């Protein structure tokens, strides 16, 4: 943990540094956190001693990541203490000058007072520990278009957390989430989780799938399948498995155990099994299927596994969803991982992707998109906070 430096004069500091036996005691004292205000007042006392009662011109600048409000608070505390110590602050020269700089290093915020009197210059410092900024709650992003869309997506925040969320499903009385280390049940104020044992090293850009039926659920992770129940207590058993993942009702595909994509072996209801090029995601589209592959290109296959064209400018994540207007494809944009993404409904018409409604915007990249029936789940990493948020996407039709 960062260590606070209790302020003391440079003279005393040198003396203490020369006396090793006192260092441990000093160190214990240093652990007392004076905080920002205390540090400002303490530094002001040292500066007041140097300034005596001469008029002083004070300037303040902020080189740290502290915000303007904190910088202003530091200035108030500093000025207040100077005045309380009899220092007369003036607005113009001639006067002694104090330049107060708020700065920082890896462990501490610093307050540095440079005191100038003619050619003399004295530097006085004080510090207090840095506290990592608290992540802000994720934004909800995205307004609906003013036009009359065919399908709109109602976005609802399910859960957000620091760890990447792989999938989430709504239960009758709560939410079940799959992340890289656990299955989490959120039921009102109640939280239960079961860890996913590290049966082998997970791939980067890890993905996972979670499906629930009643209170029973199954989670698919690369090379691992977990089965469990949410009642009466959350429980799950995980084992290594090459079992294919469900990619849509009646369709399964083999996911790579050490990569972030489906290997290409796929079986779709009456279509039977087939070997395709590797793909990231897939979605049914009437009599066809669309498989998202490399570089924002999605490949269309018709019933006899015949190539039916390609769609460019979609992202890597697709999902097929039932809407009151009929089946639609939800597709991400081909953006990068450092840009906000959006999910938009499309309809496949004669091998062409036609927009079927306005895009739903997200505060960061989409890291997961799955659908079951008439509901989709999307996970986005908020670019401001770095937190992952799972949303449900419910399609509505007509307005």
């Amino acid at each position, binding site marked *: 943990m960062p260590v606070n430096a209790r302020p003391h004069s440079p003279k005393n500091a040198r003396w203490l540094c020369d006396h090793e036996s006192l260092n*441990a005691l000093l160190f214990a004292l240093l652990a007392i956190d004076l905080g920002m205000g205390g540090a400002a007042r303490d530094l002001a006392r040292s500066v007041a001693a140097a300034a005596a009662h001469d008029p002083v011109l004070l300037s303040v600048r902020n080189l740290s990541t502290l915000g303007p409000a904190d910088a202003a608070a530091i200035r108030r505390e500093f000025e207040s203490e100077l005045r309380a110590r009899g220092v007369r602050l003036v607005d113009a020269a001639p006067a002694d000058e104090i330049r107060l700089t708020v*700065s920082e290093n*890896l462990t501490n915020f610093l307050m540095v007072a440079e005191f100038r009197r003619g050619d003399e210059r004295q*530097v006085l410092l004080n510090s207090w520990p840095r506290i990592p900024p608290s992540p802000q709650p994720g934004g909800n992003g995205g307004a609906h278009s003013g036009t009359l869309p065919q399908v709109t997506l109602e976005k609802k925040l399910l859960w957000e957390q620091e760890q990447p969320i792989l999938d989430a499903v709504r239960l009758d009385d709560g939410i079940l989430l799959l992340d890289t280390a656990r299955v989490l049940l959120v039921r009102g104020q109640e939280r239960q989780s079961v860890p996913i044992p590290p049966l082998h090293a997970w791939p980067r850009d890890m993905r996972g799938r979670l499906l629930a039926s009643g209170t029973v659920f199954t989670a698919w992770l690369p090379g691992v399948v977990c089965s469990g129940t949410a009642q009466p207590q959350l429980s799950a058993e995980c084992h290594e498995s090459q079992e294919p993942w469900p990619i849509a009702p009646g369709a399964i595909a083999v996911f790579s155990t050490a990569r972030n994509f489906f290997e290409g072996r796929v079986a779709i209801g009456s279509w039977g099994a087939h070997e395709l090029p590797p793909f990231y995601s897939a979605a049914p589209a009437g009599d066809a299927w669309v498989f998202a592959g490399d570089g924002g290109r999605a490949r269309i296959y018709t019933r006899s596994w015949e190539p039916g064209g390609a769609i460019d400018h979609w992202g890597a994540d697709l999902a097929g969803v039932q809407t009151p207007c009929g089946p639609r494809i939800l597709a991400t944009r081909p953006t990068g991982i450092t*840009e906000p993404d959006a999910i938009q409904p499309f309809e496949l018409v004669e091998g062409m992707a036609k927009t079927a409604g306005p895009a739903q915007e997200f505060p960061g990249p989409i890291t997961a998109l799955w659908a079951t029936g008439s509901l989709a789940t999307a996970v986005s990493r908020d670019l401001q906070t770095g937190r992952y948020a799972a949303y449900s996407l419910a399609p509505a039709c007509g307005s």
Partner: protein
Amino acid sequence: MRLTAWLPLAVLSAFTALGAATRPHYGGTLRVEVRAAPASLDPGAPDAALLASLVFEPLLQLDATGTPLPRLALSWQRDSSAKRWQFNLRPGVRFHDGLPLVPGAVAASLQAALPGLSVSAAADSVIIHAEHPMPGLLFDLAHNGLVFAHNAEGGLTGTGPFRLASWTPGRTAAFTANDDYWGGRPFLDAIEVQMGRGLRDQLVDLEIGKADVVELAPADLRRASERGGTVWSSAPLDLIALVVAPGRAEDSRVRQALALSIDRATMHSVLLQKQGEASAALLPQWLSGYAFTFAAAPDVTRAQALAAALPPRERTLALAYDPAITAARSLAERVAINARDAGLTVQVSPQNPQADLRLVAIRVPSLDPPRALAGLAAALGLETTGPALSVEVLYESERKLLEDFRVIPLFHLPDLYGAASRVHAFAPPPIARLGEWRFDNLWLSGTAP
């Protein structure tokens, strides 16, 4: 001057690089060129540090804000005096030869990397004990604590995301992805490194598509990014300074006159393309927080007065520079021009052993400010300082080291890299704060699927 001031370049570059990306792709070979030509991959060899960061890992690492994060250590505790630290090791980690990571191997590695500290192994942890408080130990470990073991052939093996596949000393190295890496197999299949390549050759190879990642001189930043490539940078971590040779320039007035004559701002703007920071301090601003208090602006009038008071024979100095230092000759010649304005004559030549002054580049040796200052002082031939428990004491130590002008800091410069447009970072930054390569999160477009 802000802590994160070095980040925008990397961040901006990442935005441009990832514009057309989707999910990261697995596969492909990254081709890298570097100037260094280490004879071995020993983590202790200074010029092997970058390559070693592919194979060996520390107990912890720092995120972009400087917060320590678990790596080979899952957790850690310290006593109230910060003299005794315990690091609990991540279970299930294996060296590249298949042997498990055990506390004994970790303790042996750290003992070699952290002289002066006592490192011992416990059941599932290692314990580090110091005679004095070590509040900055985590930062030191993040940079200097690479863990290794000796394999059956007597070579070194690590736990990192890449395995060493071949090594031709000083010339080429090949690394392959560690499929069993605890943090997930890297996206890349392999990395090929050409060593001993000059900056000019590297830039040409980047432009003609022979290399994917190369080192850059500040003057080449624009050229490297012109063709859709990206630029990565570390924090400013190389101290560029003038060092007076022992027994030379004994009259302090000549040293002070020279220091006061130097126009760092112009050199920084023109010769270094505003990369890094102009500084009159030993520690960079992001590490100390107070570097700006060391006056870096020239005072030519005062320099002239000091020089005028010197006997004429004392006004001439010989300055040597190492051509391997970024923009060394240009900087040295500019120092000579500034000195002339003050009434001093500085004769510039490369690698003159008889020179009064040397232009040197020294890497910040630690992320723990007191150890960094002590390390820099030792490398510069200055009296090593004792442990500093507070920022105030550290500042005072640094001020004393510089007060006689035997060392005149000029700049802190970052490591700069240019990357081809097909190279993307899944989790930036690809270059860590102290320059370590984080290439396990790089991926190449144009590979399957």
